[in-house]
């Protein structure tokens, strides 16, 4: 059963005409309203609307606007015009109506065909929108193939030259409550193992340990998809730290861990790394030691913006750093 709402201007003979045309149409339920009904809140659903023009588009557009504002999802609208001028018809079509029928022509066949075509036209538009959305969503989430470099030639970078690179700063620390259980020598050995693990992992993703002091250090990524590689290395180190501490090095607890990731331009040195000073390293230092809580992995906006879409999903906005957003690793929102 098709619900057809008919809107006419006050005092119009249009309802009588439509009733006569549609009296034998058993699959159409006709509902009649006037323009003044649009002054109240109107919420009657419809499959099709017949809207009678009063003189012209210009004189009827106010009422027509009230009509369309009362529907969340506008059904197809067939405008019954009394003004056959082309410009009038064009104005109605620009308003998104599905058809314009001249009141003088209107009969059962013309009206039924128009109703049928208008419904079909609107349905096909909806299907196209849905399809386009699906494709777009797929495009957003389509998995980019991350270029992890198979070989890296760090000698191709020259000392004291500036390069775009991505840095990962790692700090591991024995919790205060556990520190009494370890000798100085044991602590040193633990941190040495953390450093080795960092080197092994970063190398796997095309990076390397750049400099390391006691319990913290920096990995550098320059080759391939450097940002994706750096973040993947950081995520891997972060989520597998439990297994590393408990199983690989046989501790009784997991060390505290902080990781910061930042991307930018800075000076490069092969050796004498303790003498390197640059804005990117300073920023990374602040990010990791002042803006990253224990057991958190934080990345800057510079990193986030360059991440592939599927890796972005792991991060949530967590604050501001140097006036810009920072993002923290978020494994999964268990629901």
């Amino acid at each position, binding site marked *: 059963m098709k619900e057809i709402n008919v809107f006419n201007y006050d005092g119009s003979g249009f309802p009588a005409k439509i009733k006569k045309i549609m009296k034998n149409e058993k699959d159409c339920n006709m509902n009649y309203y006037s323009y003044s009904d649009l002054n109240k809140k109107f919420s009657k659903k419809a499959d099709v609307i017949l809207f009678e023009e009063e003189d012209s588009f210009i004189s009827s557009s106010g009422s027509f606007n009230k009509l369309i504002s009362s529907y969340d999802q506008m059904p197809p609208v067939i405008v019954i015009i009394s003004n056959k001028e082309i410009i009038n018809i064009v104005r109605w079509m620009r308003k998104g109506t599905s058809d314009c029928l001249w009141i003088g022509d209107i009969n059962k066949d013309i009206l039924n065909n128009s109703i049928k075509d208008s419904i079909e036209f609107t349905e096909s538009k909806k299907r196209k929108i849905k399809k386009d959305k699906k494709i777009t969503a797929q495009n957003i*989430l389509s*998995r980019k193939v991350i270029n992890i470099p198979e070989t890296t030639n760090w000698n191709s970078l020259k000392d004291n030259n500036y390069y775009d690179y991505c840095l990962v700063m790692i700090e591991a620390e024995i919790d205060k409550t556990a520190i009494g259980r370890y000798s100085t020598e044991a602590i040193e050995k633990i941190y040495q193992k953390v450093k080795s693990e960092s080197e092994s992992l970063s190398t796997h993703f095309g990076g390397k340990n750049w400099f390391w002091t006691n319990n913290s250090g920096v990995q550098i990524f320059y080759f391939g998809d450097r940002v994706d590689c750096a973040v993947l290395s950081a995520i891997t180190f972060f989520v597998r730290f439990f297994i590393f*501490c408990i199983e690989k090095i046989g501790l*009784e607890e997991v*060390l*505290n861990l902080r990781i910061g990731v930042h991307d930018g331009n800075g000076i490069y040195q092969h050796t004498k790394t303790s003498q390197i000073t640059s804005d990117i390293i300073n920023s990374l230092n602040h990010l990791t030691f002042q803006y990253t809580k224990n057991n958190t992995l934080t990345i800057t906006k510079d990193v986030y913006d360059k991440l592939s879409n599927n890796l972005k*999903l792991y991060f949530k906005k967590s604050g501001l750093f140097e006036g810009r957003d920072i993002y923290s690793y978020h*494994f*999964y929102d268990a629901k």
Partner: protein
Amino acid sequence: MGITRLKRLITEELSKAFDTNKIGQFTNSLIGYIDLYKLTGYPPNTSIPRKEAAKQVVEHIYKINKIAPLLNYFIYVAQTGFRGESVKFTNMKSVICEMKECGYQYDRELNKVVLVEKNTKRSDWGFLEDGGSYNFCFISIDISKNSRLVRKYDNSLIQKTYINFKDLVTKAVESRKGRIWNWEGDGGLLAFHVKDFVNLALLSAVDILSSMPIFNSLSNYLSEDIYIRIALNAGKATYKKDTVTINSDAISKVKELEKKHTSLMSITVSQSTFSHIDINLRKYFTAKNVNSENIYQLKFPVGGVH
């Protein structure tokens, strides 16, 4: 050929080291009392030659499929003696060589002789007996929303991705002496039995879960990430060669725990199993009451003392 020679070597060693009486005592210790007269066919009150006694005993043990326990006990006796007396098996080296030829191996970690197959991890660890009841720790693992994924993606993409996922699981499980007993494409039942099997099962589960970000980035051919659920429960089950048909209360419970009480990307452990988890690891779990029983959840990332 190999097994015949192995039986002959063991027979020779037993008959050289023991008299008939001691052969009977050796057999009692291994498989329980056996009437040597009945076994050998010698009339009662006659002397059974030691070589004949040894031969029939070894043959009987082979028929009841207890060669691995025989080898275990043989090595044990060689190392520790028999009934307070030291025992010298003169041709031990040949027995060990022949044992290997027949597919048996002394596993130093398990401290027992196990049957091994090249390139395969046996579901019985090389020594479980069909019909025997044992304690295990079971893991139920499942890919979430598999039916939706299967409808949405081309079969070849699903196959490639799921094969990669199974490889990840296999590596995490078998490196910790676990076994995949049942695999249904998108998940299955894993079993752990040897050594500290509950904690090994837990570490396998953590390994799998913590590998998911890398798996999703590099080995997942679908355009969306895969999410999983993992549950652990320890208990008894009767071992059968066809491991797909093995069932027990402990197995039913772990499946129910995984399907009904485990959030995505987390590990759930039953109350009874939790008490077997290393005390130092328990602090990383959160208790949740379900049907008046506590279950324990491990969510990621795990770490730090809070």
